[in-house]
Every structure is written in C-alpha cells, then in structure tokens.
C-alpha cells in the first residue's frame, strides 16, 4: 500500500513536470520558426551565423520533440553547406532531413532536401550518387511533379552526365528537357537547353551541330528581340566557329555580340568579347588590330577590377607585341605574371578561407551531431522512463485489479456468510420450532392409560354414570390437550380448564391420598393472557406422583394463579414427602424409568424463551426447608409481553 502511495506521488510529479514543460514550450515554439527563418536568411550570406541559429533552434526542437522543424532545420543546414561549398556536409544534412521525414512518414516535409540532394552530390563531384538521387527523385517523389522541378532535376542530371563524360545520355536528357520547354513554350528555357546541347556538340567535336543549335537560338532571340540571348547565341556560335577554324565568321559573330553587349552595357561580356576578338586578331597576325582591342579590355578590366579578364588580356597582348615590340611584349608579360601571381594568391586566400569555413562548419556540424546524439540518448532515456512508467502503470493496474478482485471476493464472502448465517439462524429456528412441537404438551402416557384403566374399573363395577362422567372428562381433557398442542401459546383460560380437569381426574384416582384447592386471582385477565400450553400440568403431576402419593396421611395440594408485579405467578404447593425423600424411596429399577415430563418442560421453556424472547422463570424449592418435605414450584410468566403468534 505504501508503495502504491509512493507511485501515485511520483506520477503526480511527472504530470506536473510535463505540464510545466509544455507550458514552457508554447512560449518558444514561435522562437523556433523565427530562428529557422533567420538561419535561412543567413544561409547564403553568413554560414557561421546561420549555423548558430540552427544550433539554437535545434536545442529547442529537441526539447520539444518538434519533428517538422527538425526536418526543416536539417534541410536549411544542407542549404548552408551547399552555399558555402561544403558539399559533403550538405549531403549529410539533406540525408538527415530525408530520413527524419521518413521516420514520421511525412515525406512531403523533405521534398526540398530530396530535390537538392542530387545537386549537392553533383557539386561534390560524386556523379554516380547524384545520378542515383536525381533518378530516384524523378521516379519516387510524386506522381505529378511540377514541370519546373522536372526541368530543374533533368537539367542537373544532364549536366552530371556531361561532367561524367557520358555525352549521349547528357544529350538525350537535354533533349527531354527541351521537349518539355518547347511544349510549354518557354523561350528562355528552350534557348538555355539549346545552348547546352550546342555545348555538348562542341565537346563531342561537332561544331556544325553546335552551330545549328546556336543559330536556332539566334533566330528565336531575334524574333523576340531578346538582345541578351542573341548576344549569348552569337558568342556560342563564335566559339563553335573557332573550332571549325573559321576566323572571319568567328570574328563577325563575336563582333555582333560585342555590339549588342555594348548596347546592353554589359561590361563583363564586352570584356570577354574584346579578349576573344583580340585573340582572333593575334591568330590572324593582325597585331595592329589586336593591340587597341586588348588595351581596351585591360582598361575595362581595371575599371571592373576583373583581374582574371585582365590576365587573359595581358597574356594575349604580350603575344601581340612579340613580333613588333619585344620590350613591350616583355613588360606586358611581366605585368601578366604579376596579375597571375596576384590571382593565384587570391585563389590561395580563397582556398584558405574556404578551408577555414569548412573546419568551423565541420565543428559546428559536430556540435549539432552531438546535440542529435544527446537527443538520441535523451530519447532512449525517455523511452526507458516511459517503459518504466508503463511498467509501473501496469503494476498499479495489476495491483488495482487485485484489490478490486479482493474487494469483490470479500463482498461475495460477506454476502454469502450473511446468507449462510441467516439460513443457519432460520434453520436453527426451524429446528427449535420442530423440537418445540415434539416436546409440546405430551400428556404423560401413564396418565392416559391409567385414566382409561379407571374408566375400565367403573365399567367392571357396572357404574355406568361414573364411567361415563370420567370418560367424558377424560375425552374433554384429551381434546383440549390435542387442540392446544398446535400452538406455542394459548389463552390462560384454556390452560385453567385443563388444570381443572386434570386435578379432578387425578383426585378421583387418589381420593384417599390428597385434597386440593385451585385458586385463580380475579384480577387476571385470563382471556387475553397467553401462556405456553401444558406448562403447569407436569408440575401438578409431579406433586401427586412423587410427593403426595407416598405420604402416609392425607396430603394437600394448592395451585394458585396470581399477578405479582408485572408477572403472572403460578404456585404449586404440595405437602408431600419432598423431592429428597422421593428419590430415596425409589428403587434402582424405578429410577431407570423416571418420568421425562419435567425435562421436557424445561427444554421447552428454554426454546420458548429464546424464540419468543421471553423470560419465563421456574423455581422449585422445598416447602419445609428443615425436613426437606413438601415442594413449592413457582412459575413466573411475564405479563406485559403481548405474544403474537
């Protein structure tokens, strides 16, 4: 029981703590999405800051077990890493997001991650995995992928094939994209893919095929007056023409592109075009044309601080000077080396800073992994706790069940014991009543047969009248006794009649032995007062048979009924030989045959007193205490009790 109380206490504690926890989380739920939003914002700009947001968010997420946001957090982590070119980390995080979503059966939450996973692998030069994930995205993600996404993925897939050197597959995939773009009439998209297809043709040493695509794009751009696309197409075409070794055509295409770019004021593009034109002139040994173009490019590069372009321009310029002015060529080359060095150092710095970022991001990632591990550990502890709790609950349930069971058993037991007790009581009562019936009002058979014998005597003496009277009285007495024997109680009047008759008949037999008087107090309401039948007669019989019959001289018997306090007192007095002498007189043979009348009445009274809750008392004493002669029997019957039958 004590244990049970303890368990209840613990459970209450748990409830309160989880309640307060849930209250706490409600305040911070908004915090999580805010943190994630911030991370998303910073994902491109500042990976470290973004990471910090994510870390903070994840702590809360783990506390609240917020699966949706956890997926989002890892998805954002993937993005951050992707943008900071930590592609392996990026793939890791995307995969994490995907597997989390799978766990809770909400794959829609990891859609972006799955879309980007292939891209990240591709960026990480892991082409096979990239291809695998692109294909799996295309086949397994959803029935109706949006065209944009199909184009996105297929383009990346084609690029991956391209990178892998599988140009046929790349070309086929690009063509699939192209048909999508054509079907939805996306001009820019079409031109973009055509550009790619042209590029593939170039890479497969098919400049003619490439030129076909470029010219298609050229026409489309002209039709829609899309100058930028036109410039792009022209530049592509010029590159293809370069492969075909058609300098004039190349130059003209390049010149057209340059014109358009000038028109568009696209300095970068102009610069590139200028360098390319410069290269063509150098190839054509028209150095005098090349030099001003390249110088213009260098100026532009200085303006835009594009050292790569400047390097390219300087290198071509030094070549242009080679035949005309060695000194200029040398000084230009020196400048080129300088620029190249600075480019290299910039690259080195970039590499270094990227490495630095990588380490710091890795460290961050490790911390997040730790968080995750903590969470897993937490999960396990929680699971264990839960198990513990369920076990405890089970235990309590079992205990409760046992208690209920015991209570039911107890209930059944008490009910049945009540029934058993009651039935036992009833049985006892029934037995007592039965016993009462058998004990009730048996006239001593001795008396009956002796009485009949007396009648016989009268007959023998031919005393018809006496015989008839005696027999009538006897018959009346017998009838009364039989009638009364049906009841536990009879009106006192009836008992008086019986006593009257009995005395008369016994006196008739033992006339010479005793005289008697029978007194009933006038104040007794003999009609309403009830007493057990044959209560008095056996004591009178005893007085006659054991007391008066042995007396030498004539004895006297008094039977008196009077009220004493609230009782009816019945007194039977004989001046016979007394109980002591009577017992002495009897021989061994006679004692064996003792009358059971008194024993009967005693057991009867015991039962009557018990069943009817009465206190009938009988007191027997000697009349002459000194000589132990004579006997007084006093019977006290309570009056106030109205006996109901």
């Amino acid at each position, binding site marked *: 029981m004590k244990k049970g109380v303890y368990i209840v206490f613990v459970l209450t504690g748990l409830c309160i703590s989880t309640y307060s926890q849930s209250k706490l989380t409600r305040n911070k739920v908004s915090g999580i999405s805010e943190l994630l939003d911030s991370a998303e914002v910073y994902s491109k700009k500042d990976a470290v800051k973004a990471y910090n947001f994510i870390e903070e968010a994840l702590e809360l997420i783990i506390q609240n077990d917020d699966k949706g946001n956890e997926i989002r957090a890892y998805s954002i982590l993937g993005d951050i890493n992707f943008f900071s070119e930590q592609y392996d980390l990026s793939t890791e995080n995307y995969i994490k997001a995907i597997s989390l979503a799978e766990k809770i059966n909400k794959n829609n939450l990891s859609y972006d991650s799955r879309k980007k996973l292939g891209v990240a692998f591709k960026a990480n030069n892991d082409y096979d995995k990239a291809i695998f994930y692109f294909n799996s995205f295309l086949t397994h993600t959803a029935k109706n992928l949006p065209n944009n996404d199909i184009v996105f993925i297929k383009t990346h897939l084609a690029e991956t094939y391209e990178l892998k050197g599988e140009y046929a597959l790349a070309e086929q995939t690009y063509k699939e994209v192209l048909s999508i773009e054509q079907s939805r009439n996306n001009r820019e998209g079409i031109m973009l893919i055509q550009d790619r297809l042209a590029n593939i043709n170039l890479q497969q040493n098919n400049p003619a095929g490439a030129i076909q695509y470029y010219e298609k794009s050229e026409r489309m751009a002209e039709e829609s007056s899309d100058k930028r696309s036109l410039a792009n197409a022209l530049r592509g075409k010029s590159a293809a023409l370069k492969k075909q070794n058609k300098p004039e055509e190349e130059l003209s295409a390049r010149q057209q592109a340059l014109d358009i770019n000038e028109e568009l004021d696209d300095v970068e593009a102009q610069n590139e075009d200028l360098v390319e034109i410069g290269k063509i002139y150098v190839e054509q040994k028209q150095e005098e044309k090349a030099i001003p173009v390249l110088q213009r490019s260098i100026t532009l590069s200085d303006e835009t601080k594009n050292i790569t372009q400047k390097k390219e321009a300087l290198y071509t310029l030094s070549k242009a000077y080679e035949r005309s002015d060695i000194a200029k060529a040398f000084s230009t080359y020196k400048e080129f080396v300088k620029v190249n060095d600075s480019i290299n150092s910039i690259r080195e710095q970039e590499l270094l800073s990227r490495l630095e970022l990588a380490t710091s991001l890795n460290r961050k990632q490790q911390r997040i992994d730790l968080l995750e591990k903590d969470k897993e550990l937490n999960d396990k502890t929680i699971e264990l706790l839960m198990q513990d709790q369920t076990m405890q609950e089970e235990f309590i349930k079992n205990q409760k069940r046992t208690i209920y069971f015991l209570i039911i058993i107890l209930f059944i037991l008490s009910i049945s014991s009540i029934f058993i007790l009651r039935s036992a009581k009833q049985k006892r009562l029934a037995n007592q009543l039965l016993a009462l019936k058998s004990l009730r009002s048996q006239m001593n*058979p*001795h008396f*009956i*047969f*002796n009485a*009949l*014998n*007396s*009648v*016989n*005597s009268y007959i*023998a*003496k031919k005393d018809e009248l006496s015989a008839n009277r005696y027999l009538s009285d006897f018959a009346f007495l017998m009838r009364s006794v039989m009638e009364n024997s049906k009841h536990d109680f009879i009106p006192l009047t009836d008992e008086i009649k019986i006593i009257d008759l009995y005395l008369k008949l016994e006196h008739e*037999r033992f006339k010479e032995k005793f005289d008697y008087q029978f007194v009933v107090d006038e104040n007794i309401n003999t009609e309403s007062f009830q007493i057990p039948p044959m209560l008095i007669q056996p004591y009178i019989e005893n007085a006659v048979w054991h007391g008066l*019959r*042995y007396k030498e001289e004539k004895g006297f018997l008094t039977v008196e009924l009077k009220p004493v306090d609230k009782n009816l007192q019945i007194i039977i007095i004989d001046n016979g030989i007394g109980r002591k002498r009577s017992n002495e*007189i009897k*021989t061994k*043979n*006679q004692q*064996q*045959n003792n009358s059971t009348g008194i024993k009967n009445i005693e057991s009867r009274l015991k039962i009557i007193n018990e069943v009817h809750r009465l206190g009938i008392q009988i007191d027997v004493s000697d009349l002459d205490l000194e000589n132990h002669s004579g006997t007084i029997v006093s019977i006290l019957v309570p009056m106030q009790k109205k006996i109901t039958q």
Partner: protein
Amino acid sequence: MENKLKAVIVDDELASRETLASYLKNYCPDIYLVADADSVKSGLEIIKKNKPDVVFLDIEMPYGNAFDLLEQVDNIDFDLVFVTAYSNYAIKALNMSASYYILKPISIDELIHAVEKIKSERNSGDISIHSKILIENIQSVNKQNHKIVLPQLNGFDVIKVNDIIRCRANDNFTEFYLTNGTRKLISRTLKFYEDILKDFDFVRVHKSHLINLQYVTRYMKGKGGQVEMTDGSVVDVSVNQKAAFLEKFK
C-alpha cells in the same frame, strides 16, 4: 379344583385390583384368586404364604416396582403375567425374556389368551425360564451377558445376545445366525427384534437385515455398500441406511 390355577394379584390401585379380580372371576374359570396385595412388601408376603401358580403383577407401584419384587423372591416357581399401563423400558425387558404381559386397560380377550398360554406351557414343563432370564438380565450390568428367549414351537431357546451375528427377515419370521454356525427361525418379525436389540449395538442395515456391529469385519464401498461378517457372510447395506450405519463407526 385340582385343575384350577391358584392366583394372586399385586397392584397398588384398588380399582385395578377389583377390575382384574372381576374379570378373572367372570372370564377365566381355570383361575381362582386366593389373595391380593397393594405393594411389593405385601405382595412378597402373600406369595410366600399362598404359593400361587400365577402372579398378576403390576409393574409400576410406589415403593418398588415389579422387578424389585421378583428380585426378592427366592425361587420363582410360579407363572407371571405382568400388567402395566405404560412402560417402554419394562416392555423391552419383558420381550427379551418372552414374558407374558397385559396392557391396561385390560382386554378381556388378552387376559383369556394369557391364561390359556400359561396353562398349556405348564403342561410342557419349564415354567420359570422367562422369569429367570428376566431377572438375570435386569441384574446384569454388563449388556454382553444379556440373554434373549426365543420362542420355539415346543419350548424356548435361550441364547446370549452376544452370540447373535445377524438376523434376517423371512416373511413374518426372523432367522437368527449364530456364532456357532447354527441358524434359528423364530416366529416373530424382524421389527420386533430390532426394537429389543438396537440397545445392544445391533443395526438394521437393510430392510431384511439386522446385524451385530461387533461381528462386522469389513465394509465394502458401493451405492449402499456391503458388510462382511465374521462368519464370511456378506450383507447388503441399503442406500437409506448407509449414513446411519457409517455413523456408528465414528
């Protein structure tokens, strides 16, 4: 006068004595009454004095009953007819010794019958056997030594109760199986002997079987079961009697 039987009456009640005397006078010509007495004491006196052939003896009297009187008679050389109003105890004793008794109020027919019997028995000899056994039984404290008188066509068999293994009902006869292996067929019902013998550890195990419990060797379980007696006989126990029978062994 020679054939007439000399009789006395011992009874404490005058009316009873008068009635019996009147009946004997009127209905039993073979009896002539020589005296009467109202107590054991006076009864002994008149028996000594008159040497009666028949004594009509009331069982219940004040100052000693019929058995007290008989115990004080030196030699019972008279026939006895007990007279009693009601005495279960006495009647059992009388039945055991097959003594004659008449119940009050006296039936004249029974009185005549009793006298007839006495007359015929006197001719066949042993007249005191019943009284002797009666007194023996009354005086013997040890119940094992009690004897029972079994009336036969031409006299009586006296056997010890202890020698009876079992009794079997045979129509209105009872067959006694004794320890010496003999059987006796008695012209009395089994019920009659059951009443007498049930005070001696005899049990009615079956409608037709009364057995002496001390000779039971084995009880075999069954619906009612069976008992095996020392003589090897097997007696069925009826379903109704099983419980009562087994109760005796507790």
